């Protein structure tokens, strides 16, 4: 009789423990899913930005073909972005692209005809828009990463995270200079 009670108590404790682990696991999995969803918002904008580049390069070539170095830098940065894996690499590639575009637009100042080209203006507008959108997508993504990573390192969810090998997610870091640029362009456009 008493062994039965002890057995029941043990079974009860095990059931509670399993339920607790399941709950913790679901919480972690949900947080990881949110990170992935937030990442796809960045990814969409990065792709959109990359897809604008060939057209931009072609348009600029029509007016300033001999600015080869600047154009090559842009094309290279775009290729880097296309092959980037993970948040950190993508952020580096995107920052490189931002730098390359900045020098391109600086050079364009010397070509008034190009600056007045409708196609060019349209592309410039789209690029500014994607840049702003990437900044906002980054804000949302990093907030989700922060919450997920917090769960992985704080007790008690850290036990379950370790048990099921949940890996911390990478932040999407905008370099300080690029971030400043985005802020300025908010008030300038």
């Amino acid at each position: 009789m008493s062994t039965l009670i002890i057995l029941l108590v043990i079974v009860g404790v095990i059931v509670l423990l399993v339920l607790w682990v399941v709950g913790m696991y679901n919480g972690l999995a949900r947080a990881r899913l949110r990170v992935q969803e937030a990442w796809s918002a960045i990814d969409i904008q990065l792709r959109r930005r990359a897809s604008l580049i060939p057209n931009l390069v072609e348009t600029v070539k029509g007016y300033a073909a001999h600015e080869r170095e600047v154009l090559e830098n842009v094309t290279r940065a775009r290729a880097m972005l296309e092959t980037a894996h993970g948040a950190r690499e993508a952020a580096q590639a995107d920052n490189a692209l931002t730098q390359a575009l900045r020098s391109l637009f600086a050079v364009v100042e010397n070509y008034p005809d190009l600056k007045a080209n409708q196609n060019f203006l349209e592309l410039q507008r789209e690029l500014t828009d994607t840049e702003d959108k990437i900044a906002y997508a980054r804000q949302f993504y990093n907030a989700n990463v922060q919450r997920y990573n917090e769960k992985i390192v704080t007790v008690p969810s850290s036990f379950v995270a370790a048990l099921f090998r949940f890996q911390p997610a990478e932040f999407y870091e905008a370099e300080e200079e690029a971030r400043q640029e985005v802020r300025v362009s908010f008030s300038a456009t």
Partner: protein
Amino acid sequence: MDAAAPGSILIYDQIAKNKRETWALFAGFVLLLGGLVGAFVYAFQAPPVVFIGAMTGLALYALFTYLAADRVILAVSGAREVTKEEEWEYVRRVENLCIGAGLPMPRTWVLEDTAPNAFATGRDPQHAHVVVTRGLLQKLTPAELEAVLAHEISHIANYDIRVMTVAAVLVGVVALAADVALRWTFAGSGRRRSNRDRNAGPAQAVLLALAVLAAILAPLVAQILKFAISRRREFLADASGALLCRNPYALASALEKIAADPEPLEAANKATAHLYIVNPLKGHESFLNNLFSTHPPIDERIRILRSM
């Protein structure tokens, strides 16, 4: 830096609270109007079927309000839906902020009025609308516009729009119903004098007085309810809007500009005033209006934003 996320515990609390308050509003609405109808049915000794019919109507109306109040408000305001091609700067900023808040894209509207102002309406983030006036698009800098839109997106994110929209339509109808009831009482008292003289008693006079009192108090109670729900909300939306666009100063200067603008907003009325970012009913600065103001003092909002 990114600690206060749109999906944090705080906002979940706020959403749950707003959903509860919407139900409380519906309950208050049915009790208020049900009580009003009940008092009149009793005072005029109408058959109970009138009461049952009226209550069924109320329930149906509440359901209609939940599903269509946003469309009623948009229709009353006279706003026009715009696409990104038509209003690039405005719509793309709404897109940006929604990406930042992780929300679906709301529908975007413009109200052709030179007075700068804005509001959001809808049921939830999946059924949401942002409305700005032409004056807002013309008179604010891009950063200020973005800050105002961030304030409106925050109203959407935490379900303020649900409570405020339902309140606008329900309170509007309570005022209307009480008005009709009062007219009916005074018109009816002439017509039915002979009828009532026959079996008039002091009890019935008291009942009638109570019914009239109910008709007078109902819209007042409804108004107070509305003020109670909207004042605190503006501070909250200011704070989370500033957090979303990372620019409290732009929001402060936008509020300053909107409040200082002398033009009245023609489309606004007492029922919808509380939806707007800044109270659109101007030029009535009196003790009573301040007491019943749907908006917290603009100076205080600006001061808080500047200190962030």
